[in-house]
């Protein structure tokens, strides 16, 4: 029997290895294993979005990725276009498709964001508790339709901006012999504001407000999950909360793990937001991101000026356009998480929880979050006549299986060829998203550096500090100022904690992954793609992180 039995996209060795000789685990998004509902949604809509965008843009050498599920892990194979005549035909359309992005990227982005925000407003306004089952079912379909559209827009932009980023890398290398492992390179791309940092700033302001209102000790002396109840006990606390809830109503559409439905959003449970406020209070002083941002902006402008002097007059035109677009790719890479993935997933979750409540009330299952162990067809099957159904057995089996997946890591690749050969296929796709986010470059060990781990540069700089292993949200609580975060990957909801960090080490990632972009904005060293950092480094060790060389050295246990 197949493990999941929920979609036609489950990995089937006999069939799938005939079609593609290698499938790669998406370690950035599907570790730890996805719940069945999220896996179903990803495999349907993320897969669709990539293929849609690759077709809409007529990406010359890639038609998107095919995806399979295996033990809760997402496995991808890149759909490479090899026929030169087909590539030439695709290029003709691709050229036209690129024009609006080059002419006015901001306008194109604004129009798509506006479209999505329209759906967000409509879905948010839906009265879940007051709806009939028919209406709630329609609402769920609407939420999934949004999910589908979100992924289309997601890759429509990502394919363009990441391709441009790669071109910027290539031209900087060719013209100035500077590549993206060089600290100088990132000077041109940092020091921009975006929505994620605006949210962090608001959290810092709420910390300041708590201080002025005499509520800082409440945050510092109690665990974040108790803070809500304690605030409600005092006049000042209630006043602070009222404002904070207004902020959450707008910006709380996010859960701690971006690529899942199973975690509560900040709106449901603001504990992670309280934790961020607490960390800003612990740190004290100014919002260091602001100062860092100002410094980076000045540095960027100076670097740009110097660079432009080296470029012949007749080349300044296209080069400036390239630089501006490359700068947008950094902003997009970070900001899209807030506006696209996190927001949409939060709204789908809201609809699903609505069904969870209703199915528990109808005695179809026992717990609200059992709903994440179903797939939409199973909700549709029972939705209008719940009294005829009992899903407990199904949910229990799926939960047991899900728990078992977490016990053993999914292999990074399943295939009939060596990792090297499989990488060859990936590179042949010229797919910017594969190369810049999901797979990244593979680290080259440099024994002469005598380090314990060899990775790639995410953000330059050297730092020593205490390693803090972060495998889940709760671990974030342990972080103190100057610590080095060690994790499989970092998530957009963790951004605020970067304000406290001395450095970051992640198992996987590339130069446009979350940890790299945020690390650069906060000006702290980040080493990525160490593969086994979370296994070799133990919590509490003192380590040295060298972002310039891409190495980690264990100083003492």
């Amino acid at each position, binding site marked *: 029997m197949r493990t999941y039995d929920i979609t036609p996209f489950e990995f089937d060795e006999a069939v799938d290895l005939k079609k593609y000789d290698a499938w790669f685990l998406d370690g950035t998004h599907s570790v730890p294993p996805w719940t069945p509902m999220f896996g179903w949604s990803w495999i349907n809509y993320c897969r669709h979005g990539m293929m849609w965008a690759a077709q809409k843009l007529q990406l010359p050498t890639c038609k998107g990725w095919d995806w399979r599920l295996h033990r809760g892990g997402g496995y991808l194979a890149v759909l490479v276009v090899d026929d030169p005549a087909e590539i030439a035909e695709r*290029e003709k359309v691709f050229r036209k498709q690129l*024009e609006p992005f*080059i002419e006015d990227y901001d306008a194109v982005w604004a129009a798509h964001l506006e479209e999505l925000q329209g759906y967000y407003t409509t879905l948010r306004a839906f009265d879940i508790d007051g709806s009939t089952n028919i209406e709630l079912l329609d609402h769920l379909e609407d939420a999934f339709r949004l999910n589908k559209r979100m992924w289309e827009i997601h890759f429509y932009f990502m394919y363009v901006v990441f391709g441009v980023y*790669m*071109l910027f890398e290539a031209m900087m290398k060719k013209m100035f012999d500077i590549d993206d492992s060089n600290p100088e390179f990132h000077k041109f791309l940092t020091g921009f504001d975006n929505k994620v940092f605006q949210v962090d700033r608001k959290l810092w302001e709420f910390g300041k407000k708590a201080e002025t209102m005499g509520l800082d000790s409440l945050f510092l002396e109690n665990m974040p999950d108790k803070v809500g109840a304690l605030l409600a006990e005092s006049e000042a606390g209630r006043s602070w909360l009222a404002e904070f809830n207004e902020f959450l109503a707008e910006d709380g559409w996010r859960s701690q793990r971006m690529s899942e439905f199973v975690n509560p959003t900040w709106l449901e449970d603001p504990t992670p937001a309280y934790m961020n406020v607490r960390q800003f209070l612990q740190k004290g002083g100014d919002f260091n991101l602001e100062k860092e941002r100002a410094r980076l902006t000045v540095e960027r402008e100076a670097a740009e000026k110097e660079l432009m002097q080296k470029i012949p007059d007749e080349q300044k*035109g*296209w080069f400036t356009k390239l630089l501006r677009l490359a700068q947008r790719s950094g902003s997009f890479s970070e900001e899209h998480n807030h506006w696209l993935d996190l927001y949409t997933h939060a709204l789908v979750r809201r609809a699903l929880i609505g069904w969870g409540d209703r199915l528990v009330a109808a005695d179809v299952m026992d717990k609200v979050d059992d709903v994440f162990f179903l797939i939409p067809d199973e909700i549709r099957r029972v939705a209008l006549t719940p009294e005829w159904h009992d899903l407990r057995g199904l949910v229990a089996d799926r939960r047991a299986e899900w728990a078992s997946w977490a016990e053993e890591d999914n292999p990074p690749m399943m295939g009939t060829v060596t990792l090297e050969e499989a990488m060859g296929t990936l590179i042949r796709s010229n797919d910017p998203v594969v190369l810049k986010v999901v797979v990244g470059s593979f680290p080259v060990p440099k024994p002469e550096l005598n380090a314990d781990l060899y990775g790639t540069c995410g953000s330059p700089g050297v730092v020593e500090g205490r390693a803090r292993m972060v495998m889940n949200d709760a671990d974030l609580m342990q972080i103190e100022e100057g610590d080095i975060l060690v994790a499989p990957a970092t998530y957009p909801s963790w951004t605020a904690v970067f304000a406290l960090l001395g450095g970051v080490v992640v198992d996987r990632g590339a130069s446009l992954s979350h940890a790299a972009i945020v690390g650069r904005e906060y000006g702290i060293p980040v080493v990525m793609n160490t593969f086994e950092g979370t296994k070799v480094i133990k919590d509490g060790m003192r380590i040295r992180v060298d972002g310039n060389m891409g190495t980690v050295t264990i100083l003492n246990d």
Partner: protein
Amino acid sequence: MTDKWIYWFEELSKDDFELVGRKCANLGEMTRSGLPVPPGFALSVDAHRRFMHETGAAEQIRAFVATVPPRELARDERVSRQIRDIVENHEMPDDMKAEVSKEYAKLCALVGLPDLPVAVRSSGATSMPGAMESFLNIRGDTQLFRKIVEVWGSSYTFQAIAYRANNELSVEDFPIGVAVMKVVNAKCSGVAMSVHPNTGDRNKMLIEANWGLGEGVVGGSITPDHFVIDRTTGEIHSTISTKAECVLPNGDGTSWQPVDAELQDCSCVTEPELRAIQELASRLEAEYGEPQDIEWVFDRDFELPESLRVVQTRTAKIAKGADEKSQNEYLIDLLLSSIYHRK
């Protein structure tokens, strides 16, 4: 003036531009560097001057110009036609004819063809692209004498006069050199720029080509085949157009003629030929120390590499402040060639 006023290309170098004009000096330089220039000789600037004085044309022009208000000179096209008529109404003096005839006979003997078709090209000491005449496929003494005089007369075209007026050069006294060279039995011809003219990218080489003679590329209504070569990776990006017409020899000159249907949509240059052009352009760029704008032609009578001939090279002009659209297109070209083309 010295008695010598005809120079074979191998006797000249790029420093001789005041002696024979820029085109001839360049042809000489290339010949001396061992580049595949069609054989030929140059008439010096002094030859033109001598013709003008001995025939009295110089005096007639001076008298005529004195009657025209200076403003009109560079404004009225009829004035330039009248000056050209003055020149063309004179025959080349007999002693000059004899000398030209002698050297032309040598050229015919060198190639091994009686009445060898030659090109007669203008060669000003100042570069004025397109302002003066050149003739192709000229055969025999009589035609040759005639066309040399017409080239001299073309130093008074409206554009040439306007150029000189705008650049504070002498309007009426501005002698030029003339190149007489073998006409290649052209399979295809074109231009090559060792720098991208819209953007100044020196890593990109641009080649445009059509069947037949070079006039079918630089002028005319057809869209030539277009190639961009990445000089680092060697990658070629080709845009092949429908080339319905090309310029071919016709009687005592050339004309636009239809291209065979089955050749219209074919690339008129093969990949090995493109590589030969690329190599030639790089060599010329190194030779002259700056990006070059080259006119080349493939001769049917030879095999590669001997078939490639260069007929002109000059400093490439790069568009200042290339327009918005070409910048966007260039950026897209770069994206395709750097990211999406297979290495």
